């Protein structure tokens, strides 16, 4: 390799063209990145602003009280007087997504343990792609399968029509399984190897090492996966709508028709005129969804901080 000649310092000073080229290059790159970031920030803020401005109108100028919406049981937007009780939707959304997480979490954790601790080779080559495949299936297909397999199964097994929160949660649990599993697998893989060896060297069995050492140490990361799964389930509209029955009341059992925030929005959106009270009330529901998403993101942040500690 040729080392630069000793007079290279003069070269640096006496080549203004090259210097200008470097400056321009930096400038172009900087401008491009700044432009993209600006666009992104504007998009995010305008979405939030738009939803908030429409969603707050019923409370600010159309005489609907926030309390009535959050705790009211009756949703009759075209009635006289119109009623906007969204509690059944809130209940349906929370019930389906949390139940889905309760079903998906143990499955996802066990899949992650299997892929990292028990059969890493088979896990990586077969199970992981299979689970990732689940993430790519369109939600309408999930809904369709739910409607033709899950609902009839519940109808024949339990009292009720089969549709309802349990059917919705079942479909959702399969849909969020990739999220839960992938994050759990990454969390377990990133544990320092020394921890496992340390545990084994104390005379722990594999099972003891997994459930007393590995899972507790990775717990904040595992919960992050669950919360992201719940967030995904909370926002899912189509698949749930197809199997939940869409009756706007709080059901008495898990196998009775119910509804969620997302499905009431998709169902009613086309039947309202923009700017009407009914339409704005749907925006209020969208605002609630948005705020819930913020809450989930916040929880994930808190958990991540615990991981780093």
């Amino acid at each position, binding site marked *: 390799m040729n080392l630069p000649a000793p007079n290279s310092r003069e070269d640096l000073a006496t080549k203004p063209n090259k210097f200008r080229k470097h400056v321009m290059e930096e400038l172009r790159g900087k401008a491009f990145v700044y432009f993209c970031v600006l666009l992104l920030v504007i998009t995010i803020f305008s979405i939030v602003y738009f939803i908030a401005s429409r969603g707050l109108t019923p409370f600010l100028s159309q005489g609907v009280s926030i309390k009535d919406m959050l705790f009211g049981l009756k949703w009759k937007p075209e009635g006289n007087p119109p009623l906007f009780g969204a509690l059944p939707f809130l209940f349906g959304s929370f019930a389906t997504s949390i139940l889905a997480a309760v079903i998906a979490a143990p499955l996802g954790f066990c899949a992650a343990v299997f892929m990292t601790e028990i059969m890493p080779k088979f896990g990586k080559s077969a199970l992981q792609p299979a689970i990732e495949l689940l993430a790519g299936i369109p939600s309408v297909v999930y809904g369709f399968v739910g409607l033709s397999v899950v609902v009839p199964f519940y109808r024949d097994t339990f009292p009720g029509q089969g549709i309802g929160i349990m059917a919705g949660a079942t479909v959702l649990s399969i849909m969020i399984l990739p999220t839960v599993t992938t994050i759990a697998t990454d969390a377990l893989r990133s544990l320092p190897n020394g921890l496992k060896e340390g545990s084994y060297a104390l005379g722990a*069995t594999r099972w003891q090492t997994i459930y007393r050492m590995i899972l507790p140490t990775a717990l904040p990361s595992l919960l992050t996966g669950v919360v992201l799964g719940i967030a995904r389930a909370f926002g899912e509209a189509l698949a749930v709508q197809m199997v939940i029955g869409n009756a706007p009341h709080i059901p008495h059992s898990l196998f009775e028709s119910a509804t969620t925030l997302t499905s009431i929005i998709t169902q009613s959106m086309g039947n309202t005129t923009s700017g009407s009270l009914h339409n704005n009330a749907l925006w209020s529901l969208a605002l609630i969804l948005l705020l819930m998403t913020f809450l989930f993101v916040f929880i994930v942040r808190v958990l991540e901080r615990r991981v780093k500690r």
Partner: protein
Amino acid sequence: MSAQSLTTKDLSVFYGEKQAVKKVSMDFPEREVVALIGPSGCGKSTFLRSLNRMNDLISGARIEGEIWIGDQNICDPGTDVVSLRQKIGMVWQKPNPFHKSIYENIAFGPRYHGIRNRKQLDEIVETSLRKTALWDEVKDRLNQSGLALSGGQQQRLCIARSLAVQPNILLMDEPASALDPVSTAKIEELIAELKKDYTIVIVTHNMQQAARVSDRTAFFFLGDLVEYDDTQKMFTNPSKKSTDDYISGRFG
């Protein structure tokens, strides 16, 4: 034979096709410190890890030969590896305290083995920490995370942790190589103290350390045991030329 003595007979370790340790036969007398020295990749760590069958955890690793602890050959397929590891403690180069409080780090092993009584656990924690001279430094903050300790303290915590399950033999894989000189000196003092109760095998890259802490020294090269003798003799008058070359720093 006592459960504290350790003997290997023609012990070979393979990683897939590669033979990392070649037919090594050694005697580890009870309550003595044996240092394993040799250049990186000479098989000494692999040899050490096979003594409590930690190599079982590496896929593709295979052991041939015999390892006798007392009158038990632990290479027998019927060996209960889990209770074996309880009897042979291990400490690594990088301190690996669990992400738990100091107390829980120590109590962890005993809990594995079914000790639930709080009083008994308290006692084990205190004795283990006293044995590693850590008690006075941490007794007021047993509930703090083990990760908050300094590197040297973490390493002593890990040693205390392995003592808590009452092993007979301690395996140490370069226990001081990631530590500063003061912490290193403390670990060496500790080793001198611990050999009253435990048989100790230590891998080290530090010749002076080997000379200071061990009663016997074994020199490994390319998977072979080249020479194994009293430390005194190994460092003053080794019988093999390659040992002399390595110890005096002419290669490796």
